[in-house]
C-alpha cells in the first residue's frame, strides 16, 4: 500500500476492473480446491505456475505483500497435502530467530536516531566546506553527504529524509533551480541501499542463506555472507557516487549555476571536527566488520547505541523524552520488514522443497541460455518489478529464485547481490512506486510528474552504471578478492 502517481490517481470508475481484481484470486483458489479433490488433474509445472499466478493475483488486490505470500503458500500446501501445514506456523518463527537477521532492526534503529539527531546537518556542512566552491557546489555536496550518510544509515529513505530535508531548502535559497536539487537528492539518496551497511544487502544474504545450489561444474555454491556483500558494495557505491557527482558537475557547468565561497582551512577543520562523531561511525561499522572485531549484527547494535549516544548526549538534538517515539517508529518499520521476511522465507522454503528454482535452472541451461542473456533478463525482470513493489519484498521473493539459476551459470552470488541492489536503486527513483521521489516530493512540494523529469539525467547515469555492474563482475568482486574474503 505505498504510493501512486498523479496521473494514476485520477479517479476512474472501474467497477468491472474491481470485480476482476477480486474474482481472479478466488477463481485460482477454486482451481486449487478442484485439484485437491481430484476433479481436475494438474501437472507439476502447472501447479508451480498456479502458485505464482495466485501470488500475483493476491498482490494485485493491494493487500500487504507478506499476507499475499503467506496465503498463496497455504493454498498451495492445501493442494499438496503431503506437507503438514502446521509447519508453516513454526516456520514463521524459526525463519527469523537467527541472530544475523537482527542486523536489520538494529540498522533501522541507528538510521532513525541519525535522521533525528543532527548528524545529517553536520555531514552536509563538512561536504560543503570541502567541495562547495566547485561547479554545482551544493549539489555536489549533496551527493557526498548522501554517500557519507548512506555509509552509516543503511537505508535509502533515511538518507533522502536525513540529507534532503536540510539541503534542499538550502539549494533553493542559494539560487539553484529546485529541479536540480530534487534530482540530485532523490537519486543520490538511493546510494543508501548499495553503500555498506545496507539493509537491502542484509536482506539478500538472509534470503539466500542456507541454499546450496550447484554451479556449472556441479560443485556446491555457497551463498554470500553479509560481510562479503558489505565489502563488495564499497567500490560500486563509490563509483556510482562519482558518476552522479560528474553528472551534477556537468549540468551545473553547462547551465552556469552559482558556486559557493571557498571555505578556509579553518572552516574545513571546524566542519570536520563538528562532524567527526558521525564520520567515526563509518570507521566503527565498516572497520569493525572487516577487522573481524564485530559480526555485522554486532556492528549494527554498536551503531544503534552509538547513534543514540551522539544524538542525545553529544549533539543534544534529540531529547530523551523523544526516544520512545524513535524506538516505536524503528520497531514498526522493522516489524514490517521482518514480517515480509518470515512469509517470504516460507514461500522460498516451499519453492525449494518443490525444486522449482532448480527445475527453472535446468530448463534455462537446456534452452542454451548464456550468462549474458540471463543477466539481461534478470535486469529487465527486476526493473519491471521495481515498478510495483518495495525493494525489500522484491529481493526476498526474487533472490531465492535467481540464486540457483545464477549459480548454475557461474554468476557469483556476491555479484548477483550487488546487481540486485543497483536494480533496486533505479526502481526507487522512478514512478510509480519510487519511494525516493515521494520523499523528495514531500520535502520540495514538487509534483511527481515534474520530479520524474527532474531526475532524468541522474537516472540515465544510474542505468549506464547498471549496465557496467551487470557485465563487469570485477567491479563488485575485486575488493573482496583483494582483501581475501572471496575466492
Amino acid at each position, binding site marked *: *500500500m*505505498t*504510493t*501512486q502517481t498523479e496521473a*494514476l*490517481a485520477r*479517479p476512474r*470508475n*472501474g467497477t468491472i476492473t*474491481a470485480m476482476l*481484481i477480486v474474482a481472479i*484470486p478466488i477463481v485460482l483458489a477454486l482451481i486449487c480446491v478442484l485439484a485437491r479433490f481430484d476433479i481436475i488433474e494438474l501437472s507439476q509445472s502447472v501447479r508451480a505456475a498456479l502458485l505464482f499466478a495466485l501470488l500475483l493475483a493476491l*498482490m*494485485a*488486490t*493491494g493487500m*500487504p*505483500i*507478506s*499476507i499475499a505470500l503467506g*496465503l498463496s503458500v497455504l493454498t498451495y500446501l492445501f493442494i499438496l497435502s503431503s506437507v503438514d501445514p*502446521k509447519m508453516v*506456523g*513454526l516456520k*514463521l*518463527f524459526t525463519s527469523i*530467530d*537467527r*541472530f544475523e537477521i*537482527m542486523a536489520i*532492526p*538494529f540498522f533501522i*534503529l541507528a538510521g532513525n536516531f541519525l535522521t533525528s539527531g543532527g548528524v545529517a546537518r553536520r555531514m552536509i556542512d563538512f561536504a560543503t566546506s570541502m567541495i562547495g566552491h566547485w561547479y554545482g557546489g551544493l549539489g555536489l555536496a549533496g551527493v557526498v553527504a548522501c554517500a557519507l550518510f548512506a555509509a552509516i544509515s543503511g537505508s535509502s*529513505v533515511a538518507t533522502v*529524509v536525513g540529507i534532503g530535508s536540510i539541503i534542499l531548502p538550502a539549494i533553493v535559497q542559494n539560487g539553484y533551480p529546485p529541479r536540480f536539487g530534487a534530482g540530485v537528492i532523490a537519486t543520490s539518496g538511493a546510494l543508501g541501499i548499495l553503500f555498506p551497511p545496507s539493509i537491502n544487502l542484509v536482506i539478500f544474504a538472509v534470503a539466500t542463506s542456507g541454499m546450496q545450489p550447484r554451479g556449472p561444474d556441479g560443485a556446491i555454491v555457497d551463498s554470500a555472507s553479509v560481510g562479503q556483500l558489505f565489502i563488495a558494495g564499497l567500490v560500486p557505491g563509490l563509483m556510482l557516487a562519482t558518476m552522479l557527482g560528474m553528472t551534477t558537475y556537468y549540468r551545473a557547468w553547462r547551465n552556469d549555476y552559482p558556486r559557493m565561497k571557498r571555505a578556509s582551512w579553518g572552516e574545513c577543520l571546524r566542519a570536520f571536527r563538528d562532524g567527526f562523531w558521525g564520520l567515526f561511525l563509518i570507521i566503527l561499522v565498516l572497520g569493525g566488520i572487516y577487522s573481524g*572485531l564485530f559480526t555485522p549484527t*554486532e556492528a549494527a*547494535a*554498536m551503531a*544503534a*547505541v552509538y547513534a543514540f549516544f551522539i544524538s542525545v548526549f553529544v549533539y543534544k538534538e534529540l531529547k530523551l523524552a523523544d526516544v520512545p517515539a524513535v*524506538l*516505536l517508529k524503528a*520497531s*514498526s*518499520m*522493522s*516489524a*514490517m520488514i*521482518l*514480517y*515480509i521476511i*518470515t512469509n517470504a522465507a516460507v514461500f522460498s522454503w516451499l519453492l525449494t522443497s518443490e525444486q522449482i528454482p532448480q527445475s527453472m535452472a535446468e530448463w534455462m541451461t537446456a534452452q542454451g541460455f548464456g550468462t549474458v542473456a540471463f543477466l539481461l533478463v534478470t535486469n529487465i525482470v527486476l526493473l519491471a518489478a521495481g*515498478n*510495483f513493489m518495495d525493494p525489500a519484498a522484491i529481493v526476498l521473493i526474487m533472490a531465492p529464485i535467481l540464486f540457483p539459476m545464477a549459480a548454475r551459470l557461474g554468476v557469483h552470488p556476491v555479484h548477483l547481490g550487488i546487481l540486485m541492489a543497483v536494480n533496486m536503486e533505479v526502481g526507487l527513483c522512478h514512478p510509480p*512506486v519510487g519511494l525516493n521521489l*515521494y*520523499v523528495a*516530493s*514531500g520535502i520540495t512540494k514538487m509534483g511527481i510528474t515534474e520530479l520524474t523529469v527532474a531526475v532524468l539525467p541522474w537516472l540515465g547515469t544510474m542505468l549506464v552504471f547498471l549496465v557496467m555492474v551487470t557485465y563487469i563482475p570485477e567491479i563488485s568482486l575485486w575488493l573482496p578478492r583483494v582483501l581475501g574474503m572471496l575466492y
Partner: protein
Amino acid sequence: MGLWPKGNILLDVLDRILDRLEEWIICVLIGAATCITFVAVVHRYGASNAVVFATWASAHGLTWLSDAADWLYVSLTSINLSWAQELATYMFVWMAKFGAALGVRTGIHVGVDVFVNRLSPEARKPVIMFALACGALFTGIIGTLGAVYVYELDADQVSQELEWPSWIIYLCIPLGSYLMCFRFLQVMWRYQQSGYVPHQAHGIEYQGQQAPVAEPAQ
C-alpha cells in the same frame, strides 16, 4: 475514530489501553534487546582485551597492572553472557510479531496499490474489503496453527541457552497472529464505518501526497 458504536466508553477505553500496551511492549523489547546485545559485545571484547593487556603488562614487568588486568578478566568471565544473544533474538521475534499487529493499525505494511489507486472510491471499496478480509483470514489460520503447535509441544522442552520452556517462547506465534487478526477486523470495521484506511510508507507521511485510500470516501 471509535471502533465501537458511539457512547460505549468502556470498550473505547479498553481499546485505548490495548493500543498503549502494544506500543509499550514493542518499545521495551527493542530497547532492551539493543542494550543487551551492546553489553554482550562490550563484555566479550573487554574480556579478550584484558588478557592481552595482562600478558603485555607482565612482559614489561608491571606486576600490579598485570594483576589488575587479570582481576578484570576473571571478574568479566565470571559473568556468563552466552544467553544474551538468544534472549535478544527472542525479544526481536516477539517485537516483530507484535509490531506487525501495530503495523496493521498504522498501515505500514507495504502492498502493490497501483491498481487499486486507479479505481474510483466506490469501486475500490470491495477490493480493499477483500484484501483486508484475506489478511484477517491468513492471520487467523496462522494463529490457530500456532496455537495447536504450542499446545502439542512437549512441556519439558526448553530453549538451548536460556533453558526457558519452549512453549512460552513460541507463544508469540498465536498471540501475535490473533492480535494481528483482530487488528485487520478492526480496520475493516472502521473502513466500513468511515471509509478510512490507515496508510503510510516507511514511516513517512508525505504532505500533500496522501494516497486517496486514506481519504474518507463520501
